[in-house]
């Protein structure tokens, strides 16, 4: 089981408290599709993804960005049992969506960059370390059900 120090819990909760879920979710997913274009393969039915402007104004992508962040919020509320909380999500991503798990890290990195952009120097190295530990636990839980 993952051990969280009091400082780490406070840091992670602090990051979430400052997040505007909607806009952060949207911006992270759009950045992922722009910076790592091969991730677009999972969004074939989402309409126009031809260039950065199209991606950034695509309403289906926007809606999905919010879904992703709501998923992360679940992990936050169950920080001591992320593995179990994400069992169904992990099966969904492996069996149904068939997402290459390497891509989870790419989206996570974009999310970290978006948070850094918004928090500026408040996103200190210590807070970044706690946040990235949280994210790596989430990614590990998502990868768990893959055969």
């Amino acid at each position, binding site marked *: 089981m993952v051990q969280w120090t009091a400082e780490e819990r406070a840091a992670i909760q602090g990051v979430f408290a400052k997040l505007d879920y909607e806009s952060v979710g949207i*911006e992270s997913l759009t950045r992922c599709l722009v*910076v790592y274009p091969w991730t677009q393969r999972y969004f074939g039915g989402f309409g126009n993804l031809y260039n950065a402007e199209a991606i950034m104004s695509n309403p289906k992508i926007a809606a999905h960005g919010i879904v992703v962040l709501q998923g992360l919020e679940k992990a936050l509320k169950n920080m001591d049992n992320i593995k179990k909380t994400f069992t169904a999500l992990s099966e969904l991503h492996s069996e149904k969506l068939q997402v290459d798990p390497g891509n989870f890290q790419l989206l996570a990195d974009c999310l970290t960059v978006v948070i850094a*952009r918004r928090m500026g120097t408040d996103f200190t*190295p210590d807070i970044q370390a706690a946040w990235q530990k949280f994210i790596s636990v989430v990614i590990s839980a998502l990868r768990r059900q893959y055969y």
Partner: protein
Amino acid sequence: MLSNTEKELIVQIWDTMIPVAEDIGSEALLRMFTTFPKTKTYFSHLDISPNSDHLRCHGKKIVQALAEGARNISTLATTLAPLSRFHAYLLRIHPTNFKLLNHCILVTLACHMGDNFTPVAHAAIDKFLSAFSAVLAEKFR
């Protein structure tokens, strides 16, 4: 593959980083050491505590090398040849670590550039850093 617009954007961004090379470089390194403690194993010969002279000096060197690379993107392999040999034969850093520093450089830029760190700028810099690291790792084997 960098477009001409991306190359110009990269030069612009790194030119603004040169006057604050020590701040940006040392912050990126500190972020890497804090988030990925295993990277500290390469620095046992330096004092890498926050704001130390060694950290600031080393951070400055890295940013200056990146700015130099940005101005010579079409000839990266030649421009970086000495650094490439240095990393391969002397430093012998495990190649996965380049990505960790690259990520922390992106986070540092995002913190300082705010709205100017657009998705297009983010993509361009990420591609540049990957190309730069590839040249540094070229002579590894």
